[in-house]
């Protein structure tokens, strides 16, 4: 990857993080969960997902399914930066006059399916992947999951079925940020050794740094190349809350609702200034 491309992607990622932070104001959003997924989404939409300008329903397009639905601020932030969504709509967050809320839905152009309940979109993606195989169409189908989401048996069930049908056009990207709600994954339901589990289920697996664009590029080479007969899994090691040192890697910074002043301080922190002083309650037990 050239420095020029890398710099562009990093600048885009910074702007996506600004959108996420602003969405945490008032009613709040899953800010910690969303910040870990930024580079993944920016890379996918900039370099992997092929779409036709102005034709969101082109059957030859690549599909991105956000199974980790509560990451939607990262998705919408990316859409804004890719020119798919006007920034002004983000100010309608949590208003019943628009369709911008805590999980994605198809009222927003570019969103392939609604999500929120974990463990669903791997199977929906597998259905799309199967249809593409039946038609001999070379679409790429990418499904982003969380790591806590891997607790759901349906994910593993789908992998067995998808590999039984040779769906090598299907890729699962795990946003492996080590947390689920307000607890570490390894304290609740340990997932490691995670690569071994995916391989045992018949997938071809890679593990990358989910915040480094060179690493993402390496990870998605096989997705771009296609073939191989097996579902591709990319475990992207990430940091919950990445970009905001006062939020990073904390169990209590998953869903947050901030005041306007805190949001301004967080934006300054994002740009390298002093850590924001947070007074709002940030521990949300769900």
């Amino acid at each position, binding site marked *: 990857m050239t420095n020029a491309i890398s710099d562009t992607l990093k600048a885009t990622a910074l702007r996506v993080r600004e959108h996420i932070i602003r969405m945490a104001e008032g009613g709040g959003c899953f800010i910690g969960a969303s910040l870990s997924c930024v580079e993944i989404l920016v890379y996918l939409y900039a370099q992997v997902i092929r779409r036709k300008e102005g034709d969101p329903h082109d*059957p030859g397009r690549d599909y991105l399914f956000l199974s980790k639905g509560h990451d939607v601020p990262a998705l919408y932030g990316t859409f804004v930066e890719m020119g798919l969504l006007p920034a002004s709509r983000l100010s309608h967050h949590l208003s019943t006059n628009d369709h911008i809320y805590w999980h994605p839905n*198809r009222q927003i152009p570019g969103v*392939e*399916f*609604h999500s929120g*309940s974990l463990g*669903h*979109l*791997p*199977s*929906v*993606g*597998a*259905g*799309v*992947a*199967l*249809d*593409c195989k*039946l038609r001999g169409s070379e679409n790429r189908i990418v499904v982003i999951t969380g790591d806590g989401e891997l607790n759901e048996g*349906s994910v593993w*069930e*789908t992998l*067995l*079925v998808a590999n*039984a*049908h040779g769906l090598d056009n299907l890729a699962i990207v795990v946003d492996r940020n080590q947390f689920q709600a307000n607890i570490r994954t390894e304290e609740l339901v340990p997932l490691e050794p995670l690569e071994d589990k995916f391989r045992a289920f018949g997938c071809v697996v890679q593990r990358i740094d989910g915040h480094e664009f060179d690493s993402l590029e390496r990870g998605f080479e096989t997705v771009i190349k296609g073939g191989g007969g097996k579902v591709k899994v990319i475990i992207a090691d990430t940091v919950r809350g990445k970009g905001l040192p006062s939020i990073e890697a904390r169990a209590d910074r998953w869903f947050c609702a901030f005041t306007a002043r805190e949001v301004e301080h967080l934006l300054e922190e994002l740009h390298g200034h002093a850590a924001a002083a947070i007074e709002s309650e940030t521990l949300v037990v769900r």
Partner: protein
Amino acid sequence: MISTAQKDERIIVMTAENRALVRSAPRQLGNRFIDTGITEQTMVGMAAGLALRGRIPIVHALAPFLTMRAFEFIRTDVGIAHLPVKLSGYIPGFLSDGNGPTHQSIEDVAIMRGIPGMEVYCPADEDDLVKVLPSVWGNAAPAYVRINHKKGSFEHSVYVPGRAEVVAKGKDVTLLVYGFLFANALKAKELLEEEGLSVGLVNMRSLKPADEGAIVEAALGSMLLVTIEDHLQTGGLYSIVAEVLLRHRVSGTEVMPLALEERWFRPGLLGEVLETEGFTAERIAARIKNANSFYAK
């Protein structure tokens, strides 16, 4: 189903390792037949994905596992997106006979009709199924069909979507029935007529939409309505009738439910199950006669 599927390449037939009813599908449909293994949730999720791509998936599995194991996938993936996924529930109600309570689908109507936009069909026998199916496949709504492929001897009328089949009208009693119990209800009607009663009979054919007009007309025209179903009393036809009569402010009609009250039924061969549970033609007629003498003016 197979011949329709052969002609329409949008149709994909799926099963979760329940091949008995779709035995000829692999050979005749080739790669448009998908067996996902014992994976109802993945099967339904994949059906949603296939439907997104313009296919019409016919998803066939044992009714309890299709509707309950995969309920959230049906409601959330198929229902919220309102996709044309056609669910085929095998051996519902008493038809699970010797399997036991784990396999008894006696709440499927209740839970399926609770999903906004989901249609629910309940043909009486193979002839009824063949007449109802084109409507099921012909529209873009998600649908659940309580599959009943048993051969009957009654020739059913042409199916009109949303309309029940009013076999007969009667002043004393009207039997409202769906599914394979239709045959026993028909015979029970004859037995009651031998006793001098004027008996009506309605084959519901679909429970969502339910033919409200037929229900109201039967209520206004008969002293007693009897709902007959191999389903729990809560949430099936009895509840539907209660809702309809309430909505249309029809009072003064007695409604007697023949259904399963808060319990799973005793497993056995089908004939014995019907006898034990009181759903043979003779037992239906006897239960109504006893009730009728209680309600008779």
